[in-house]
């Protein structure tokens, strides 16, 4: 990382923002919001990019910005015979549902119909009424099933949910490694706890015995030895980290190994290999997590270029972005398939059922089972989830290796 370059970049950024603020205060608010070019396509992002949970939203927003810049550089996106420049309107909800609602209303007021986010369960639930009433399709990174099953209609799950990847991972471990027992830990927060409950159900379905399922930690914890001691004492075969943040995972893994735990750690969220390497080193070997499509076997040249562009733009890549690269392309591809959806989200919903396009981010993205499409029939009873290959990764010596690739339907 080049710290000085980063600081320099922010200095120019601050100067730019100051100019912007001064400019908007000298003009009237209505002038600046209405005066926008007609051939711009605005896509919203509402999520947390500051405060303790900033990690969740930052990688999300940055992937969108990288992809948008890239598309604009190549002349924009052609929808219905017209070229559009992609603009990302972002809103920082600070993980506060009240602000998330405000964010979605901001988007509505700007005429933005497609929003990525929010990143938390509470936020995603909170924006639902407005999104449905005012015609916004949103792509939350939150797992509650109520958001996607009927009568909910406007949320599209932007990734693989833990109740989809969990059973697959547990089954694989049971079949291939004779896993019998499992322990779980979760942060004392709604997202993490509901993921733990999901994991619990998945473990039961897979026939695993949960030997320790009640241990939770405060999200400000940095010393995990006291928390892991009773978990490891219960002698589990593997430990499931429910909804654990990318910053906590390496610490938990490291402490777990120091306390003598030999089994696997499992997470159903995206992780960053570099952080794992720096934070836990060899202790993280064997750690299973759900990845996107940047494993060497799967990543298409386009995905590789995306990573390069992201790295160039923001200084360093975040592997978590692998799972978050898709949402923008899904929106754009669906709009291409049905240009009427630009103004009317009901058209978008109609298109969902039949939509299919080549997936540019994975090798073999043109094969029928790898194509971009909407899924979720078995989990939600309606197609309210984007299809992404369920890549189950294993961390080994600084890199993720694909353990197996599954599918969510």
């Amino acid at each position, binding site marked *: 990382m080049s710290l000085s370059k980063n600081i320099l970049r922010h200095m120019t950024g601050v100067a730019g923002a100051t100019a912007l*603020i001064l400019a908007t205060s000298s003009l009237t608010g209505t002038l600046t919001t209405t005066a926008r070019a007609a051939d711009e396509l605005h896509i919203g992002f509402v999520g947390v990019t500051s405060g303790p949970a900033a990690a969740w939203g930052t990688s999300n927003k940055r992937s969108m910005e990288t992809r948008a810049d890239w598309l604009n550089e190549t002349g924009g996106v052609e929808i219905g015979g017209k070229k559009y420049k992609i603009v990302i309107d972002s809103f920082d909800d600070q993980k506060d*549902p009240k602000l998330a609602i*405000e964010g979605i*209303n*901001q988007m509505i007021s700007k005429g933005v119909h497609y929003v990525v986010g929010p990143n938390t*369960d509470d936020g995603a639930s909170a924006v639902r009424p407005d999104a449905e009433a005012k015609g916004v399709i949103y792509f939350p990174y939150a797992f509650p099933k109520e958001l996607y099953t009927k009568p909910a209609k406007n949320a599209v799950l932007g990734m693989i949910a833990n109740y989809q990847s969990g059973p697959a991972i547990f089954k694989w471990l049971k079949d291939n490694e004779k896993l019998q027992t499992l322990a779980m830990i979760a942060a004392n927060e709604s*997202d993490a706890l509901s993921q733990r409950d999901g994991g619990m159900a998945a473990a039961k379905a897979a026939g695993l015995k949960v030997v320790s399922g009640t241990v939770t930690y405060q999200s400000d914890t940095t010393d995990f030895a006291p928390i892991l001691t009773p978990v490891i004492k219960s002698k589990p075969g593997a430990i499931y980290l429910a909804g654990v943040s990318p910053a906590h995972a390496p610490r938990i893994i490291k402490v777990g190994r120091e306390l003598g735990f030999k089994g696997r750690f499992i997470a159903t969220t995206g992780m960053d290999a570099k952080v794992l390497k720096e934070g836990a080193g060899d202790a993280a070997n064997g750690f299973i997590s759900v990845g996107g499509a940047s494993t060497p076997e799967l990543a298409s040249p386009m995905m590789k270029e995306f990573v390069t562009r992201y790295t160039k733009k923001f200084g360093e890549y975040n592997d978590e972005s692998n799972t978050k690269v898709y949402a923008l392309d899904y929106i754009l591809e669906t709009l291409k398939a049905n240009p009427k959806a630009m103004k009317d989200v009901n058209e978008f919903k109609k298109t969902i059922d039949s939509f299919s396009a080549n997936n540019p981010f994975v090798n073999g993205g043109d094969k029928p089972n790898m194509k971009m499409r909407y899924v979720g029939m078995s989990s939600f009873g309606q197609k309210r989830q984007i299809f992404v290959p369920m890549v189950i990764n294993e961390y080994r010596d600084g890199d993720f290796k694909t353990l197996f690739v599954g599918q969510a339907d």
Partner: protein
Amino acid sequence: MERFPSNPNLPSPQRGNLSNLSRFVQESRPTWPWLGTVFALILLFFVIPDFIASMRPEKQGLIYYQFTQIALLSIAAAGVWLTFYIGRINIGQGALCLVGAYVSAIVQVKLDVSYWLTIPLAGIFCVLVGIVIGWPILRLRGVYFAMITLILTEVAKLVVLNFPIVTNGARGITNIPLPEAVTLFGFTILPEFTADNNRMYFYFLSMFVMVLTFIALFRLVHSRIGRLCKSLQQNEELASSLGVNLVLLRLIPFCISCFMGGVAGALAAGVQHNVGPSIFTVQDSVNYMLYCFMGGLGNLFGPLVGTVILRMGWNYLTAAGDYQLLFYAIALIILMLIIPNGVMSLSPVRIYQRVVGWLGNRRPTLNTVPHNRKS
């Protein structure tokens, strides 16, 4: 009665037009609340909605929502201000808001009670909570009270998470129905809230409650209770020696504060149609305190002004993108350096006094010849 002879040695305090003015303002107070209320009602219920109605339809929801948020946050902040008024720094209002929101949601969903009833119900429940908590902890002062209330917010969250039988735990309570219409003898007293109009109706509801809150608070502060609270704020021991029942007089404002927190929570539950453990967090508790400081602790409209400034300011700074928090922080620091006592310490009267004082010092009479710019 025999008069005690006056002491010529003691300096007689300066008495000029400044004191006369401040006395005038003090003593003429009882007449202007009515004017103020009428003005506020016209502004909030006619001028602003009329202005919003002139906007693009897509934008209206946002503006209504922003005003609604300001209203309900300032209701909670008013409670915090009241605890400041008895000399207690309260960083636990978020806990009460959370409790209020959950009470409203649970009673609606599980017991099928009308939303309208749950608003006072949430307030009353929070008063009970306030009595139980306030009784022991109100003995604490200064940062000790502040810290213990800060912990309370965290406790409230953990209680919600750890007792899923009542609270639905981490999943929260979703799909709270919109308030129904209330009719009496065939007249619709309260209209039905629908997906299309609820932003506007919630605006009216929360503004109404806000106006009520501040009227109630105004009355409180300018009644004898207010003076007693103020005496508590400044010297509890002395107040006690004058026969003031400290335990009771600390508890009453605290319970009112809790009531406001509960009502704000119930309103939020209605506005959001769902509640989860993170709708009010430690950050909210700290924010309420900041609103009070920003507005000024010396004036009861301080929390309202503070909420408007900080909340609008934050929204406005969305334009700064990644640098939003940075700009916000810098703005706060600068404001703090310029007006450390809050915006309301810059009352027009005070500024007028300054000007008059300045004029009075520089030019003894207004009829003197204009003098050069030597000063």
